[in-house]
């Protein structure tokens, strides 16, 4: 009895040890970045390891005084959030049509939509630049919003469609005999039933959008439209050299909105991801 209790206690200890180690491995890059971000610049680039770094707000002061970091963050949030909203407004009805309506060329249209994702972005970089120039949208957050939305639309449509395919047809039949119109069925039955899929798609689209670099660099030329991803590049060159502690701090600031988003919707997200995993 005593030994059984002891071994259970030991196995519990072992479990926490393993999980704790794993958590440390996962968190290390983040903690590492934080520690770099709050070190003086000289200490960051020293070749010898420093076990007890000096705490310094140098990078923070640099960001706050010389760079409109709040503006970059605002641009990122507006462009990303806006693009996700556009994606969902367009993708949900499209996914529903592709999943449920029987029309000629349905599979081909579905594949065509997905195939837009297979193109290397660099191929369309120049046409996109001229397109937005003609539209007078260069150096604008709204342009970024549209571009992010366009890049992710196919993926979002496909993820949501695959969830909609899994909703039993009986549910819609029931709603129809209960007197609901197609739009009502979509709004009251389908969307709530595939909410985990919609949330998963939205988070994936947000992550892709916040990391987007090429088109952002192309469209944005001033703080009007610079986002966090492009702002990072500002610290890698110029007369001051590479400012590692500022880069680390900007990266961390860029990471915080996604972290908050994921924590808020964690329950739906993990369910959504595993559901997708089972489907394959």
């Amino acid at each position, binding site marked *: 009895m005593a030994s059984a209790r002891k071994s259970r206690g030991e196995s519990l200890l072992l479990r926490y040890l393993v999980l704790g180690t794993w958590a440390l491995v996962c968190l290390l890059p983040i903690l590492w970045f934080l520690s770099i971000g709050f070190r003086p610049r000289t200490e960051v680039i020293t070749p010898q390891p420093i076990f007890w770094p000096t705490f310094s707000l140098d990078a923070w002061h640099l960001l706050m005084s010389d760079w409109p970091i709040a503006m970059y963050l605002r641009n990122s949030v507006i462009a990303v959030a806006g693009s996700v909203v556009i994606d969902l407004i367009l993708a949900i009805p499209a996914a529903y049509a592709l999943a449920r309506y029987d029309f000629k060329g349905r599979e081909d249209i579905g594949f065509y939509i997905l195939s837009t994702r297979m193109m290397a972005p660099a191929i369309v970089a120049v046409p996109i630049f001229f397109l937005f120039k003609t539209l007078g949208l260069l150096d604008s957050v709204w342009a970024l919003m549209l571009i992010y939305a366009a890049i992710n639309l196919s993926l979002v449509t496909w993820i949501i469609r695959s969830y909609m395919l899994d909703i039993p047809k009986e*549910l819609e*039949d029931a*709603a*129809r*005999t*209960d007197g*609901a119109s197609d739009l009502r069925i979509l709004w009251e*039955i389908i969307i*709530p*039933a595939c909410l985990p899929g919609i949330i998963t798609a939205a988070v994936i689209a947000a992550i892709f959008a916040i990391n987007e670099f090429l088109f952002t660099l192309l469209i944005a030329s001033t703080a009007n439209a610079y986002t966090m991803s492009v702002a990072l590049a500002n610290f890698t060159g110029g007369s001051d050299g590479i400012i590692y502690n500022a880069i680390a701090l900007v990266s961390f600031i860029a990471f915080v909105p996604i972290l908050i988003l994921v924590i808020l919707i964690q329950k739906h997200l993990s369910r959504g991801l595993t559901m997708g995993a089972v489907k394959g």
Partner: protein
Amino acid sequence: MASIHLQNIVKRYGGFVGVQNMSLEIADEEFLVLLGPSGCGKTTTMRMIAGLEVPTDGKIMIGGEVMNDVDARDRDVAMVFQGYALYPNMSIYENIRFPLRMRGVPASEHDARIRQAAEMVELGAYLDRKPAALSGGQRQRAALARAVVRQPQVFLMDEPLSNLDAKLRQSMRVQIKHMQRQLKVTTVYVTHDQIEAMTLADRIVIMNKGAIQQVGTPDEIYSDPANTFVAGFIGSPPMNLIEGTAQGGRFNAPGVSAPCPSNVQGKVTLGIRPEDCRIGGDNVQGLVYGVEPTGDTTYLTVLAGTKKIEVKAARDYRSDIDVSIGITFDPARLYFFGQDGERIRGVA
């Protein structure tokens, strides 16, 4: 409340015929059961009445109005599905309320009607739960309440009990029948379970391969089958069907000899129900193949030639296998079917 008329209904899927030229009259307040093996077209027929499938040809009328071009949501028809089809994101209360909202029933009436419907299926205590928190039987009752709350002209039920265990099925059966009698709503019920059909129906429609085989009351279907399909489908165990030759008022098959009407000639099939066979006598000369006591009765299988014949014996009947045995048929309960499977009627 309404009657339903199906006029020469055809449903084709490409080259496959789901329902062929089906005509049926369902009276007001009638409880009609569509019975048949899976794939026989019974569910397709029901879905056409609901408006979820469009017939390729023919006319569907509910309450005297042609419904072919009327959308499912505008037909005053409530359907209960095999998989319950409860809306998973809504509480039971909201599930039952959904058809009221969709049909523009004044909000002031909702609560009273929802509670009344829930009481009818004894679900009053579970209204605030989500469907996932209910057992199979409770979910089925919630689906029934959602159909009842609208007070529709027609109930359609598509194998509503097939996902429940045997005991629950029996109690739900009684509940459905009681409810239908109480509400006096025309009901079409699809099942492949003959016990459900026999116990629930005012009339049964037996279907096979998209065509009606026979329409009749449970008694008619049981004691007056129109063909070998109906005879073999209804009854548990089903009717013995013995192929043989009739000549000069006598039916003969290996190990079997029985009187037959004089108009029965040539290759025919003799049908006899297990309960119309008695042990002893000489209509069958065979060997005991197996004995199955079930408690209230004992089923005996006799091997005559290569044919196995089921006999319902006394509850305490016991025998070893391979013992010689004779069986007598009740001469008034013999059925004869022609080579096409159709019943040969006429002078007895």
